[in-house]
């Protein structure tokens, strides 16, 4: 009841915060996909690079999220973007790298070598093998990584409010400061709804893109 009351009173602000949250996470995920997938592909050809990249991405994952956002402030203030959405996006991109890179790498590495051999033996170039065989076969595992990254980013994105980036975390932090239960709940539930909804949409996209031949019967 209390929650409903809060929403009816503050729906304009709620929509704004929801939009900010989606914007920060959306930008971060797009950047993360367009960096993480190519890095994952690249390291699947280069064992040494794979070790180093996966190690670094692993370390970044272990940094507590609130600390990572904190680190962004002094580093990015050099460029005049210490607080606000820029450090938030940068931190989220870094976080999202590990699941995306690791899944892309594992997926490409896992393609049955017999099938790659068939492609090479029939006269496909290296890039044709990658585009026509390895990537289509790896797609569903890559997608799984992206979905983990998206859901995680939406959750961690709440902390971005701490460095002034706005978003639904604003309600959570303010609710905690003011011991205003309804505000915390509205913030948290909205984050959860966004995560579930986006994950569902990605599931639909995955179904469209992944070949029917790869689905389990």
């Amino acid at each position, binding site marked *: 009841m209390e929650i409903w009351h809060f929403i009816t009173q503050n729906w304009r602000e709620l929509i704004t915060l929801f939009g900010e949250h989606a914007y920060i996470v959306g930008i971060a995920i797009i950047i993360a996909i367009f960096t993480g997938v190519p890095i994952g592909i690249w390291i699947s050809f280069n064992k040494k690079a794979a070790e180093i990249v996966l190690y670094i991405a692993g370390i970044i994952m272990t940094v507590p999220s609130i600390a990572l956002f904190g680190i962004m402030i002094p580093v990015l203030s050099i460029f005049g973007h210490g607080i606000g959405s820029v450090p938030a996006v940068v931190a989220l991109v870094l976080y999202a790298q590990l699941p995306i890179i690791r899944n892309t790498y594992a997926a490409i590495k896992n393609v049955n070598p017999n099938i790659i051999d068939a492609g*090479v*033996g*029939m006269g496909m170039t290296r890039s044709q093998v990658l585009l026509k065989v390895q990537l289509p076969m790896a797609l569903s595992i890559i997608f799984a990584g992206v979905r983990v990254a998206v859901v995680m980013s939406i959750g961690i994105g709440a902390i971005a409010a701490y460095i002034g980036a706005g978003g639904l975390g604003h309600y959570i932090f303010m609710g905690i400061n003011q011991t205003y239960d309804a505000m915390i709940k509205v913030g948290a539930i909205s984050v959860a709804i966004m995560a579930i909804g986006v994950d569902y949409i990605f599931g639909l996209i995955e179904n469209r893109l992944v*070949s029917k*031949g*790869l689905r389990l019967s």
Partner: protein
Amino acid sequence: MITFERVSKIYPGTNIPAIDNVRFEVPEGEICVIIGPSGCGKTTLMRMINRLIPITSGVISIKGQNVSEMDVIKLRRSIGYAIQQIGLFPHMTVYDNIATVPRLLKWDKQRIAARVDELLSLVGLEPDIFRFRYPRELSGGQAQRIGVVRALATDPPVMLMDEPFGAIDPINREVLQDEFLRIQEKVKKTIIFVTHDIHEAIKMGDKIALLETGRLVQYDTPEGLLVNPKNRFVKDFVGADRALKRLDLLKVKDAMMQNPVHCHMEDDAEVVSQHMLENELTFLLVADQNEKLHGYVNHYELKGHHGKVKDLVRPMTITVKPEQNLKDALSKMLSYDIGIVVVVDDDGKLLGVLNTRTLLSVVGETYDERGGVWGKITSRGRI
């Protein structure tokens, strides 16, 4: 057509060559089976042809062209390639799988569609049913057929096949082998076929190249390998039952006694009876003027009969064709409990007879050395 000249392969970091100074030539339109125990280098040798494995020294050439000097992508696209465990692309339909190389070669759509239908029909798969299936929706045998026709897609003169029927159960394997040989009759490709199964090698090969630890031990016809194994290794490899395997390989026409003694329908019974008596014949084959077999006569019945042979002729129900293999003929003789079987062609014309003696003499040829020919053994007991 495909020649190997002093071909060697030494993997980096090893001293022992995986392929050691191999030289032989595969004539155009023949199936050459490369066989040997596991680790002998048979797959390595095959993969050196389309340069999936680089050659250390020596020359492999196709139609006189050194493969090492050709553009590697063009080389591979010009060679049909079918591998172990099928290697179909699971994310592509049957159509897309078969269309792989035609698309790489930029064929237009209509030409590809027509070719896919043609190939599916060739292996007895209805195009309208199978065209848009995925590999996981196919049985093992169907998938294997698609693997083979995919290699045939652009009608390449040369095909490499690495144990293409290895993953199939024995009964279906026989069916696929027969089907493949029928197709080969029509398309006459030059084929390098790798297997570890000596039965398959004998059945499929026009020539067999037997490898042992990277060296070519014997390159011969299946017949030559069975009859004249070069050494102990070859003999052991082809198996103790090589005489029986030879029955599989030889045709009835190779072993039959030609122009067997017989009489004609219109011959006089008394004359024939007299002849049979003089020559100690109990039975005699009967043909007509065109040498078409009508049956046989029995001396006991013929004796004292006034008239023609045709009055007493009995039909001959069990016959074999000259193109059947000796194993089939022998099993027919054993299952009908007869010591002789008559060979007729499709029109029923009498060509010859096959009896256990002629059969065994063919088998006996396999053993041409110690223990083979003992001379005449009599029943005199201790000497």
